[in-house]
């Protein structure tokens, strides 16, 4: 005989509106082994928690059922409550009567009867619960940050300044990310490089940061507190331990590659640093552009290198590091706008995308900071087209969030650098942010023209050769407008990285509909993920501006710190175990486990499970033909009796 207490929460009216909570409590009182059943307005409040603790003592309860919101919300809260009241925390059962009952119906009778069914299942299951002992593990105090854009840089510095050793992994040969490509930042018009490069340098100089550029993560093993991550150091063909960054090689190199930093608007050498302030300042060789690698002779870089740092035989190498927590800050791509043929990108030389324009403004860019077209002429009229591919059900439904503001910034810079007429074709102007609305007002005063209407297409002008015609419906006047311009700037949708899926697979992250990484809770756990010890920051989570990215990176660093400041960590006790008396030695469990937790004990002739490696999925218990494996907290008996309970009503 167990002694169960059932506590039904109203959650204000969230539950009580469509579930008869007092009737549900009365119903619970009639169920087997239930000694007390109560309902209360807010079970998670202090009085609610105190009531549960009090009743545990008063009624000598040995099991507690809380019928309230999803276990993903408050399971930990109520586990603490019953633990403080002297019970084993695994003797708690949460019944989800909010997210999966009261919120998905308008009918109070339907809601109540479904709530009764799931509560009945919980009572059946609770009767079979057993106390479990949590595992205590040692924690590795180092952290890995994936991605060296502003999010990764900020998170790495924050952790390093707190005395933690950080591995900062970046797939390109320099850190800096997209922010390094920008000329100015909205709304303050701060020079992007001026605020970014000191941070890049701080990363390089920091004794606690191990900067791993030109590297990619290839394998992730382990669990929170003890990840074992394998990183591939791609061959640079330059021995960075010998290179003194004189860059004589980059001057002599005859090879030609496409400059990624300039968005393909310029060429770079085959041996190169991506941009003048790159960190580290040491070059790599692009095999595809290198004359030696393609034609078998040249080796000019080797001839001029006094340090003898050039090594054509260099191979990819792999290194495995231990860390306690991981921050994923892998950033974004811009949508490829070429398939949107109506805008003529790739067909008309006068059509640019936003990042290309960032480079045109930049003093270190292809035009030395002058706004000129591909033929060298200055544009007389410029159209900036908002929402290309975003806020568009045919492509990406989401708002890319920063395009309005950078389009306003572009308008300002065009006005500053040219005498051109500037037109913004927009759906809405979204200027929510500190100083953003003020910036918008300033741009209006700068005589920039705003046409409320999404541009429908860009064509070659029939009237004036060489000019482009932008067509749109002005939704304020209701009239169709045609504007002749020389330059068109597309503001494309911000999308997840092309390899986001691969990152998600490595780190066990969920992705939302658009492919951005999902946070554990959209409001209350915005940088945590469903994988313990893995955090996210920056645009890989969803489009956001630099201030929000920096704030989120600090948040992720703080979350990672809460794990790695401790020496020991408590892990869920819900692992699997083998009953040796029933084990038939088939070793199915050994073969299927994704974590290698079960192993065959030759001496005893049975399988055993290494609890430190077990993550508690229960796969082995299902494949065990002898039912010798017990998935703690989700045993066959527990699940089957819950099924029996929910099917009774």
């Amino acid at each position: 005989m167990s002694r169960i207490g059932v506590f039904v929460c109203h959650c204000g009216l969230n539950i009580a509106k469509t579930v008869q909570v007092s009737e549900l409590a009365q119903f619970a009182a009639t169920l087997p082994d239930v000694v007390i059943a109560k309902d209360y307005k807010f079970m998670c409040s202090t009085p609610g928690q105190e009531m549960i603790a009090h009743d545990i003592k008063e009624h000598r309860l040995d099991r507690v059922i809380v019928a309230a919101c999803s276990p993903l919300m408050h399971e930990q809260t109520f586990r603490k409550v019953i633990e403080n009241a002297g019970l084993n925390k695994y003797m708690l059962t949460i019944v989800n009567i909010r997210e999966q009952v009261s919120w998905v119906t308008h009918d109070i009778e339907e809601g109540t009867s479904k709530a009764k069914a799931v509560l009945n299942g919980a009572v059946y299951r609770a009767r079979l619960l057993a106390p479990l002992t949590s595992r205590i593990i040692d924690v590795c105090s180092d952290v890995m940050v994936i991605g060296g854009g502003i999010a990764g840089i900020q998170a790495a510095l924050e952790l390093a300044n707190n005395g933690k050793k950080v591995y900062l992994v970046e797939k390109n040969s320099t850190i800096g990310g997209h922010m390094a490509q920008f000329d100015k930042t909205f709304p303050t018009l701060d020079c992007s490089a001026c605020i970014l490069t000191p941070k890049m340098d701080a990363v390089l100089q920091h004794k606690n940061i191990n900067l791993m550029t030109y590297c990619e993560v290839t394998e992730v093993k382990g669990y929170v507190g003890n990840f074992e991550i394998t990183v591939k150091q791609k061959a640079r063909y330059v021995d960075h331990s010998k290179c003194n960054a004189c860059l004589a090689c980059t001057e002599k190199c005859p090879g030609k590659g496409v400059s990624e930093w300039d968005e393909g608007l310029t060429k770079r050498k085959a041996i190169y640093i991506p941009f003048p302030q790159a960190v580290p300042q040491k070059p790599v060789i692009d095999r595809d552009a290198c004359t030696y690698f393609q034609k078998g002779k040249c080796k000019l870089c080797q001839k001029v290198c006094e340090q003898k740092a050039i090594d054509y035989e260099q191979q990819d190498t792999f290194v495995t590091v231990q860390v306690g927590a991981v921050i994923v800050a892998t950033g974004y791509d811009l949508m490829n706008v070429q398939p949107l043929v109506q805008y003529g990108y790739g067909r008309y030389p006068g059509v640019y995308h936003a990042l290309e324009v960032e480079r045109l403004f930049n003093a270190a860019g292809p035009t030395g900071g002058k706004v000129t077209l591909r033929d060298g002429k200055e544009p007389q009229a410029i159209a900036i087209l908002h929402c290309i591919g975003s806020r568009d059900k045919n492509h990406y439904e989401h708002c890319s969030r920063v395009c309005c503001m950078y389009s306003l910034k572009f308008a300002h810079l065009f006005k500053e650098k040219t005498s051109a007429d500037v037109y913004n074709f927009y759906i809405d102007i979204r200027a929510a942010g500190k100083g953003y609305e003020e910036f918008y007002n300033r741009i209006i005063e700068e005589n920039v023209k705003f046409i409320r209407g999404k541009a429908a297409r860009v064509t070659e002008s029939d009237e004036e050769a060489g000019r482009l015609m932008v067509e749109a419906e002005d939704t304020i006047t209701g009239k169709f407008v045609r504007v002749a311009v020389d330059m068109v700037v597309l503001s494309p949708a911000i999308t997840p990285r092309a390899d986001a899926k691969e990152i998600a697979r490595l780190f066990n992250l969920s992705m939302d509909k658009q492919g951005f990484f999902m946070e554990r809770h959209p409001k209350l756990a915005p940088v945590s993920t469903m994988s313990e010890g893995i955090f996210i920051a920056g645009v890989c989570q969803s489009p956001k501006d630099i201030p929000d990215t920096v704030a989120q990176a600090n948040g992720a660093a703080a979350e990672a710190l809460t794990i790695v400041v401790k020496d020991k960590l408590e892990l869920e006790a819900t692992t699997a175990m083998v009953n040796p008396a029933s084990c038939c030695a088939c070793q199915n469990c050994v073969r299927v486990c994704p974590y290698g937790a079960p192993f065959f004990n030759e001496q005893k002739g049975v399988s055993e499970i290494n609890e430190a490696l077990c993550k508690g999925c229960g796969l082995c218990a299902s494949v065990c033909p002898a039912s010798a494996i017990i998935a703690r907290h989700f045993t066959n008996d527990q699940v089957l009796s819950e099924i029996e309970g929910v099917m009774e009503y």
Partner: protein
Amino acid sequence: MSFEPKILGIACNWCTYTGADLAGTTRLQYPQNIRVVRVMCSSRINPSFIFRAFQLGADGVLVGGCHPGDCHYNTGNLYARRRLAVAKKILEFVGMEPGRFRVEWISASEGNKFAEVVTEFTAQIQSLGPQTKFKIQP
């Protein structure tokens, strides 16, 4: 009065259960015939859970897991997929209407898919009528 079927849902914690929570958070409405039992991974689902549910009078059983390739436990749902395919064959072999058992991959972000699947599955079970083949009469 129309037939109100009893439907058992078994959902993995990380994807389908969280997706079902999202359906609630966004206040999507779907029929209340389903009762969801949570397991950590769809691979935990032993076919006996499904057979037992039918014995206990379930008119339909819906299993939800992460999309293949997105399993929280890397490969768990791949085993679940194969095992549940066999379970479906066994059910068909013993004469159960195939439409009474369904496996769906519903991610944590697919609240609307959860609501759609449940709505559609409930209607399907309603048209099949009460399940009597396996039900143990009291």
